[in-house]
């Protein structure tokens, strides 16, 4: 069984700044991490590998060359190999172009039985690339999964979270599964893993390698365009009360009642 895990590198802090002249994000100086939801997805994949050592876990990532540094962590955690899709022509891709590029690379690498991804990345928060990949590959999907229950006989069973609770969904392989942060905390790299990570090459693939249609990739291949980026208006300064607890409670109750919500 071959599992792909899609991972994106994102800025570590949510405290990003905007270049007021160009209107673009200032990413310089902000440390990058691997998207936390994707790490939960990797953990699900590695747990399947724990149960069945013949499972091969391949990490796939699209990003600039320096992403290689953080990706080593996935090898240290237990991924078998890592591919970094990196090409200036991939830059500026929206979710349509990104899902095209990643799905093309997965096909190029021989296809997957299961593709895991985080439910969304914490920078863009779109949750669109996963289902997009499933559509490009014409495979079923289970999104917003909080728990993978079982993989057996060419099928996967997982709990998809819903607003009211969850759906227990069964899907045929090959399948794409997106993961929310569930009960399974991503493991720490093992010492052996870290040694292996040092020795293992992170394979880089460019647009020509994976034979993408150039009109479908990067900014030019993206149907959407960022028109403007701005900082949301700040909340007005609030009121702060200190004092004896029953007075605080009294004031608090008074304000709540005055809001006329209840």
């Amino acid at each position: 069984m071959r599992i792909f895990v899609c991972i994106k590198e994102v800025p570590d802090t949510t405290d990003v700044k905007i270049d007021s002249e160009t209107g673009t994000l200032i990413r310089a100086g902000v440390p990058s991490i691997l998207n936390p939801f994707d790490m939960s997805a990797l953990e699900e994949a590695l747990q399947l590998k724990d149960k069945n050592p013949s499972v091969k876990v391949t990490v796939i990532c699209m990003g600039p060359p320096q992403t290689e540094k953080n990706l080593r962590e996935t090898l240290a955690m237990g991924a078998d190999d890592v591919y970094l899709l990196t090409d200036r022509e991939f830059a500026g891709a929206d979710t349509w172009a990104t899902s095209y590029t990643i799905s093309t690379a997965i096909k190029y690498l021989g296809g997957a039985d299961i593709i895991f991804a985080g439910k969304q990345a914490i920078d863009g928060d779109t949750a669109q690339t996963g289902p997009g990949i499933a559509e490009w590959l014409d495979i079923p999907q289970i999104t917003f999964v909080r728990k993978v229950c079982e993989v057996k006989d060419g099928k996967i069973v997982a709990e998809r979270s819903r607003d009211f609770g969850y759906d227990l969904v069964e899907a045929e392989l090959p399948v794409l599964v997106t993961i929310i942060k569930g009960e399974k905390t991503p493991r720490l790299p093992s010492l052996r893993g870290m040694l292996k990570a040092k020795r293992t090459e992170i394979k880089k693939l460019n647009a020509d390698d994976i034979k993408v249609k150039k009109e479908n990739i990067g900014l030019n291949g993206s149907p959407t365009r960022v028109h403007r980026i701005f900082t949301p208006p700040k909340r007005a300064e609030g009121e702060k009360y200190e004092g004896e607890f029953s007075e605080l409670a009294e004031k608090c109750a008074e304000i709540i009642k005055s809001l006329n919500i209840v």
Partner: protein
Amino acid sequence: MNYIEIIEDLCVGCNACVPSCRFGVIKIINDIAIIEEGCTVCGACLDACPYDAIVSRAELTESKPVDINEYSGVCVVAELEHGKPATVGFELLSVGRTLANAREVDLTTIILGHNIKDLAESYVYRGSDRVIVADSEYLKDFNEENYSIVLEKLVKKYQPEIVLCGATIWGRSIIPRLAVKINTGLTADCTQLDIDPETGLLMQTRPAFGGNIMATILCPNTRPQMATVRPRVMKPLPEEIERKSEVIVEDLSDIKWPRKRTTILESVEELGEMINIAEADVIVSGGRGLDGPEAFGMLFELAKIFNGAVGASRAAVDAGWIPYAHQVGQTGKTVSPKLYIAIGISGAIQHQVGMQPSEVIMAINKDPNAPIFELADYGFVGDLFEVVPSLIKKMKK
């Protein structure tokens, strides 16, 4: 989508391709290779064939560039919840109405499901000029593949310039597939939609980077312009039960339904009597300051007075005091209640991004320097174990 074809004149049935298929779907029958169901079009067999008898083909799609002027009208894809209209559909009609008026076009609602024709009226009452009912037993259960196939047909037939859907788990699972099928852009989780008066384009504004920045996105060259819209941001229009309009029950007989590849084995209502934090008007939320799971009892008691929900910070969830379904913040849910009461929550940025959209924020915390006070409209510096029981008593009065 692409597909794999065996050129029968070239195939000699040599068997070379059979082991190359990772999915075991190639068989040799009467000295000719046959690709059975389950092909992922991975292409591994292409290189394996010594006779070049296997080719990958792209299904023909309209190659002509989209004439964006052929698209007109605003279309809302309305979600049903347990066979009833979900509120988010009415919210979309409200913003859809504004957009349709600005563009001087019609507003259409699409509903998908089985035995749902009776629901059409409710969308008419909420401002729709036309309701398209896609009714089939294949649409009974939530199935992204079937839903997106029907939407593809309807979008190609009616050619709306704008398609809106709720940014719920339902909408965010279906519409990205539709966007790939019909080769157009999709903007996720919008909180504001406007028409640019000069270009007539849909300006789709959404929070990104956890709400720290806002981005306005355009889809200039392809149609429709598609957006999912965050629930509870737009207000539904009042019901007008005198409104009349067209209801079309769509003929779906020409759809080739794909083999069913996903099955919902069970749909579990987990929250029981508890209110879902994504829908609550009031959320009482607890964090590390609660010192353990017991104090959440107090929060549930307070929330019950408001018919509200109980939220939690990541610290409380990670400590195992309360399930993940309650988590508010970057790795939890984003909420926008009318009132958010943060109790014993210091207010790390990761928490703030999940509750920033709340209308009124209150905070109770003993640390006067807690970052939550910078965000709170009303801050109370005090011991939650004293203040909260006292507050419950006073609210019950």
